[in-house]
């Protein structure tokens, strides 16, 4: 089964509100990454957080990582209609070059 489970599966918010999505995983990791996917397109890398980091910021994005709970969250502040997309977490288990993707959260930001 897939390493990552994300919740919620879908989220609909008003422009200007914050959006939070969560990712849980099963094994130890080297790092965890978040990607965005616009409908019918490839994935775009957003942010990476290493296993020894707890929080990271990039513009309007804030990522947290709790390795004891094997979970991560992505917060998008002051959301915009252009943030409408699917968001995936991906984990990088030690000893492998493979990435394991979560099930994704579909975010819709209403103007």
């Amino acid at each position: 089964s897939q390493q990552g489970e994300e919740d919620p599966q879908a989220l609909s918010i008003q422009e200007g509100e914050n959006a939070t999505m969560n990712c849980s995983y099963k094994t130890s990791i080297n790092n965890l990454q978040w990607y965005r996917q616009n409908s019918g397109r490839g994935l775009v890398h957003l942010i990476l957080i290493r296993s020894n980091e707890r929080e990271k910021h990039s513009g309007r994005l804030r990522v947290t990582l709790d390795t004891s709970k094997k979970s991560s969250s992505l917060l998008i502040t002051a959301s915009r209609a252009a943030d409408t997309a699917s968001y995936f977490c991906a984990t990088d288990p030690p000893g492998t070059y493979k990435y394991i993707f979560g099930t994704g959260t579909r975010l819709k930001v209403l103007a």
Partner: protein
Amino acid sequence: EADIYQTPRYLVIGTGKKITLECSQTMGHDKMYWYQQDPGMELHLIHYSYGVNSTEKGDLSSESTVSRIRTEHFPLTLESARPSHTSQYLCASKSSAETQYFGPGTRLLVL
């Protein structure tokens, strides 16, 4: 903007046809990946490559095959397409750094 390309972007073919999905990158990345993704669903790794002449099957069983004769090129072939192969196929690459760069994807419909 990542320099990774996929062709064709869309393909509609009949059952039993042989097809090759092309993926090329100009970044000199040694690792390349193929994922299969049904609409709105998670990504499943079907093939990956560590470098020239090195290919491995991924976590999802696939009837496709791949080759890596040149660093920049990682084509995926289906010898006999079936309706169950209908999906989106995403190619990605990475260097020794952690970030994967994705192509725009190929949407395949097998009638």
